[in-house]
């Protein structure tokens, strides 16, 4: 029996159980392309690229970030404890620890988001659209590893209901869904979601001597498996090592190291080496630390023409120019950080590759894309360096430019019309 016969057999009745049919339809279209295609002689489409494939390429581009992010959660955790300090030491422990942290975040984000999506689809009588696949993959990557799951659920629900479904579903939203959920959790729970302690998972505090908070998953489940193999196990008696801070490079650059006269870039390099920052073995949001893997994803997106290289390039130019301008002014230690090192810190590349290029919320016109990316670069740097209230600027800069992307498009179109009328 062919697979399609099996699918036809289990198809639920659309009238009796709309929710089930919606769910069925969503998975059916995953396995098969629709049988309504453009006939020969009609509109010319070069490629059968549909929404599902577009979305799935982004998810594929994110996979390396997922792998590295999972491992890095564990790596940072053990660095704080002062054991297994080299990158590959305690490989199984770090991977297991990362999974214990990442999987619940992933599951909650997707169950809440897709649940809402399915409910809306069946209630409003259209098929499930694939938009949330990407949002559901992006949201775990931009959360800090210690994010409380209930808040995560609230923020995802906020973003999907108010940011997307209210605007009419996939492809209609004005603001990036993943960033809306991140901004919601950032502003709704400000004291717990920023600062030095959220970036490293599983510690009650970053003070020296603070205990770890292992659950049954580490001490029971994984320790049982590792003992059976005779490997090293999770030790609930471990405490945070002396001299550990857990501060991210951006926090160090902004505040310096208290008690010393190290400020700006010197403070950063006294704790993290450049290669550490480039390869991403630093504390941060789950998926944003490893720059080479993000660039690989970005190249994949450019090759498949899903993301716009214009936005990426103009964003780099904007950030570089803003950084040079700040170097020239040089009023605070943070402003004196050489502009090229700004790319080493924080989530610039992740925002550039996966957030700013979102084709729905970015400007649609080609000129508009240059303007849009350039201003994200400039404003992101301004928020990062000049605004003491926020540690990082790209999320807010992209949301701000999302607000104006429709305006930019409108005026670019008007200018085009004017130019062509003159030519005529």
């Amino acid at each position, binding site marked *: 029996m062919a697979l399609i016969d099996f699918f036809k057999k289990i198809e639920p009745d659309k009238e009796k159980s709309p929710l089930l049919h919606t769910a069925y339809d969503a998975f059916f279209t995953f396995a098969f392309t629709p049988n309504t295609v453009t006939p020969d002689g009609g509109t010319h489409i070069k490629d059968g690229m549909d929404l599902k494939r577009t979305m799935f390429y982004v998810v594929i581009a994110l996979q390396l970030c997922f792998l590295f992010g999972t491992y890095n959660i564990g790596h940072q955790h053990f660095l704080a404890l002062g054991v297994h300090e080299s990158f590959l030491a305690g490989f199984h422990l770090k991977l297991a620890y990362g999974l214990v942290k990442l999987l619940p975040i992933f599951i909650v984000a997707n169950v809440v988001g897709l649940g809402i999506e399915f409910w809306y689809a069946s209630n409003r009588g259209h098929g499930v659209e694939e938009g949330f696949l990407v949002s559901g993959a992006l949201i775990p990557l931009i959360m800090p590893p210690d994010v409380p799951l209930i808040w995560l659920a609230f923020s995802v629900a906020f973003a999907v209901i108010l940011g997307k479904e209210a*605007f009419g579903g996939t492809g209609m939203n004005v603001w990036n869904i993943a960033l809306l959920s991140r901004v919601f959790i950032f502003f709704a729970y400000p004291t717990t979601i920023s600062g030095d302690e959220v970036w490293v998972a599983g510690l009650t505090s970053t003070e020296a001597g603070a205990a770890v908070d292992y659950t049954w998953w580490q001490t029971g489940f994984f320790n049982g498996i590792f003992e059976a193999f005779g490997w090293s196990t999770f030790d609930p008696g471990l405490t945070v090592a002396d001299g550990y801070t857990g501060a991210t490079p951006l926090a160090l650059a902004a505040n310096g190291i208290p008690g010393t006269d190290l400020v700006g870039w010197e403070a950063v390099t006294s704790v993290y080496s450049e290669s550490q920052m480039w390869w991403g073995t630093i504390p941060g949001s789950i998926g944003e630390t490893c720059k080479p893997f993000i660039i690989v994803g970005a190249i994949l997106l450019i090759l498949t023409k899903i993301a716009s290289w214009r936005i990426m390039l103009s964003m780099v130019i904007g950030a570089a120019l803003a950084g040079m301008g700040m170097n020239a002014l040089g009023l605070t230690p943070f402003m004196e950080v050489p502009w090229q090192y700004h790319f080493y810190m924080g989530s610039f590349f992740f925002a550039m590759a996966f957030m700013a290029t979102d084709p729905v919320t970015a400007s649609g016109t080609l000129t508009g894309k240059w303007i849009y990316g350039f201003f994200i670069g400039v404003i992101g740097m301004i928020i990062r360096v*000049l*605004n003491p*209230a926020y540690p990082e600027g790209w999320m*807010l800069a992209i*949301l*701000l430019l999302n607000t104006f992307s429709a*305006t930019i*498009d409108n005026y670019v179109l008007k200018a085009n019309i004017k130019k062509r009328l003159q030519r005529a």
Partner: protein
Amino acid sequence: MEGSFVNIFIKAAFIENLVLMYFLGMCSYLAVSKSIKTAFGLGLAVIFVLAVTMPINWLIHEHLLSENGLFGRDLTFLKLILFIAVIASMVQLVEMVVEKVSPALYNALGIFLPLITVNCAILSGSLFMVTREYTLGETIAFGLGGGFGWFIAIVALAAIREKIRYSNVPAPLRGLGMAFLITGLMGVAFLGLMGIDPAALQ
């Protein structure tokens, strides 16, 4: 000194946007933002009225109403009435100019053009000027900046509303409901700039 004018302009336009941070002037903001063209016209009118009335109000407040003024008495309790009178006469002027220059825009704006008189963004500009004890130059900078902030906010909202005009928005939210929602989310997006102090960079 020149730097501080720029600071006040930037602060009033982007960081402490009258609409998105103080939620002032919402009535015409929500009602006239259906198309970019009318929003653009109303935005310009608000910039003009703010930039003209605020210096006049400053002069009135400083030289007629304050204790060191012409009458030598503290007459500041009259400021609300006088401010509104100045604003109303300026709006009348704008209305005549718009009617003469662009009848189409005049018709599109309808009742909301004379209603700039009671646009609380305008009055709030004059009241902020009093409580913050601005000088004349700072007042002009604040008037221009506040007006410009209002202008970009209403144009951005109109562009978004034009963009989602054919979206399948849930029926109860169509129209003003979406305008409210968009305004709130725009406020969230503008939060990124809050906390930047341009004066600290001098």
